[in-house]
């Protein structure tokens, strides 16, 4: 991790909920242009860490630095504007808005028109709106939802909703994309498709990817670095191969003998 510049650096991050320490003295780097995964049993603090990055939670100790900005004490909208997009473990679309509207809302970090411009229909506002709709259609095409722009988000099938959520995150032109279990509920074929898609995001758009994932096939298949959390603490960090061989991980997390496909060891531990 030292040879590349880190785009996201977490130093000594601790988050407590009352007596429960959800994330404990966590040091973490995401190198620029990489794909990094965080894995760990349920309740290990992965999503909590995501929520700390995107500003839902204020960290109790430590700092999170992104692209030269310290993210502590910033509201979620400011953090979104510094260039971090995210998706959610349980899809959180604006369900009663259309697919296109969802993407347009995702464009917020890069839109500038004001409400006065909207009332007066100033040329700048109209130009920006027109461009925004064109871009939204582009993102719709990009994630493979052509022709579904006018569907309400809640009426889209599950897989499409996942993709729409990613399109919404992409629309804000993020430098870093946080994906919270992007393949949850998908069959192996769909997961493979999603893996290709995620790699494409990094290769073609130059977006750094940080993901939480349970599907070991996905984690081992696309990650360049993997970090393992357990009870809020980092227990291992390395390349997928190193992680697969790491005895502590196998013991604490994967269970005996499990290397690929996720075994029963996961839930029991949590």
């Amino acid at each position: 991790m030292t040879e590349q510049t880190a785009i996201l650096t977490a130093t000594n991050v601790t988050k407590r909920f009352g007596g429960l320490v959800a994330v404990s003295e966590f040091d973490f780097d995401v190198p620029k242009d990489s794909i990094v995964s965080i894995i760990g049993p349920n309740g290990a603090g992965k999503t909590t860490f995501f929520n700390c990055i995107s500003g839902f939670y204020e960290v109790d100790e430590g700092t999170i630095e992104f692209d030269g900005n310290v993210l502590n004490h910033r509201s979620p909208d400011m953090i979104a504007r510094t260039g971090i997009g995210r998706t959610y473990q349980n899809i959180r679309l604006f369900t009663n808005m259309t697919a296109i509207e969802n993407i347009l809302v995702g464009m917020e970090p890069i839109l500038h028109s004001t409400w006065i411009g909207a009332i007066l229909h100033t040329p700048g506002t109209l130009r920006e709106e027109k461009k925004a709709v064109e871009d939204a259609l582009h993102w719709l095409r990009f994630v493979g939802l052509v022709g579904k722009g006018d569907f309400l988000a809640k009426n889209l099938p599950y897989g499409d909703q996942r993709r729409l959520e990613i399109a919404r995150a992409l629309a804000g032109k993020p430098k870093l994309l946080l994906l919270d279990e992007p393949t949850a509920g998908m069959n192996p074929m769909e997961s493979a498709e999603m893996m290709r898609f995620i790699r494409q995001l990094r290769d073609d758009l130059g977006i750094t990817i940080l993901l939480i994932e349970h599907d070991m096939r996905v984690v081992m298949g696309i990650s360049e670095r993997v970090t393992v959390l357990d009870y809020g603490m980092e227990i291992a960090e390395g390349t997928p191969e190193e992680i697969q061989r790491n005895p502590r991980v196998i013991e604490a997390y994967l269970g005996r003998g499990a290397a690929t496909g996720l075994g029963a060891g996961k839930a029991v531990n949590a």
Partner: protein
Amino acid sequence: MVKSWDIDLRIPLRFGLIAGLIALMESVIGIVTLSWERSLVANVVTMGQVLLFAPAIVIASMAAKQANQDKKLVSLLYGLVTGFLTAIPLIILIAMATAFDLRQFMPNVSPALIELLTFGRSPVAGSLILLGVTSLMGLLAAAFDFLPKFIQRPLLMGLIVTLTIGIFSEILSNRLRDLVSVDFSRAIFEGKALKTIIAAGLFAFVAVLNFLWNQFQEPIRGAFGSLPPRLTRVLRVLVILVLIALGLLIPTIAGTYLSEVINNVGIFVLMGLGLNIVVGFAGLLDLGYVAFFAIGAYSMAVFTTEGPLGVSNMSFWAAIPFCIVIAAFAGIVLGVPVLRMRGDYLAIVTLGFGEIIRILALSDLLKPYIGGAQGVLKIPKPTIINFFAVIRDFFVNLFRGLPLPKAPFETIDLIKPEQFYYIVLAGCALAWFVSWRLGESRLGRQWMAVREDEDVAEAVGIKLVSTKLLAFAVGAAFSGLSGAFFASKLTSIFPHSFKLDISINVLCLIIIGGIGSLPGVVVGSIILVGMPELLREFKEYRLLMYGILLVVMMLARPEGFIPSAVKRREMLTADEQMQASAETESAAGD
């Protein structure tokens, strides 16, 4: 055989008892007695009769529809039994009223009511007649359903239009007398009702028109659709121009009384448009909305009054911007502390805010400035320059070589409701325009997103603070403008004009009209503000009607009379949604 008929007597029993209880309630609360003499069509039908028998007819028809489509006898039976049962509670009432004096508990159960329920006969004979009449009506209502749809619809439309015109006969006949002539009015109306022959003609006319429209709707629309786009645009502009002309002519057509009613409606439309932004667009439930109305009204009052409380003697026009800005500022002041509150909590806090403002207006603390319970008096009406006279003088004097007109120009005081109408119209048009532009804009999307999921909205980069405060400020600004008009229209204001019921009223009207829908605000205001004004004789039943209307609306048409595009989308795609969720399940199952 009987089994294959699928008769379930519980259906008409249930419907019949509901209908009977409605008819009973109408009788007991006195509205039947009150409206019995109110003729709709002279010598044919009165409002009381419609009210008393409508439950039997409407509900029997509903009961009949429960029967299997091809079982006509069953549905007739259902209609008959429902109609029959409708009379039972009324007959019990007749019996009890004959035996005891019920007026101690139910003051409206008067001999007059019993007399009209029994058609002036003895209790027994009258009860039997009532039973026969309602049964017959139930039967007819069921039979009506056998008519093909293309006949049903025109008949219903004709009936509704004729009865509606009948209800407003008095106002209409007065207008016709002023606009055309006394003779013309007398030719159409008899007393406070439509003449029978005219009513029949009107019914036939509307029915035929509706029939033709239903038959030829498709080809006409198709023809319009196939017109060249340039022509459609010209036509659209023409329609808009005609509507504008009509809007400008309304006071002349409507006369003083109706103009006054329309102005009141307009003031509520303006408030409704504002609350629509807060509740409809941004999803922030505000129950203290009257506060901004009061603030706008008091600002106008204090800035312009010629009484001792005046601070500046501004003109109406100079004060308007101040009223708007002050109200918008108040919106922000309320908005800041409630930024983090949602749903119920927000509603309660805003409710408190509304009351605080009213109590402040009543308080001794502010009495030296805004008059306490005595209110603010002598608020001037707006004045405009008589452009017509000035331009005329300009040319006349130019021609004659006299000095040209100079300031101060000749002015007109907008005293009459017909004149004030234009100010209200301009205010509503402005608010409509702003609502429409904002609703379609980036800000409109932000509001929608905040309404849907506040956390995610913030995480995609929406500034919650400014988005919410803008909604509060714009909503409050419209309400403040409305209050300013209100103060100037009444020329004096008192704290008791700004009670909680105004907030509730405005909220009800946007719900009934269709939340988030601009035309819905207008329709809601006409129904909840205009109608009660026109039906003043039934004033005491106003709240009851509100309640009934709201309950019925929520059951039958929860999206409102004119649902917004968003709501319509939500409702229409229910099937699609089911299909999608089925797919979701299969996807998740893999």
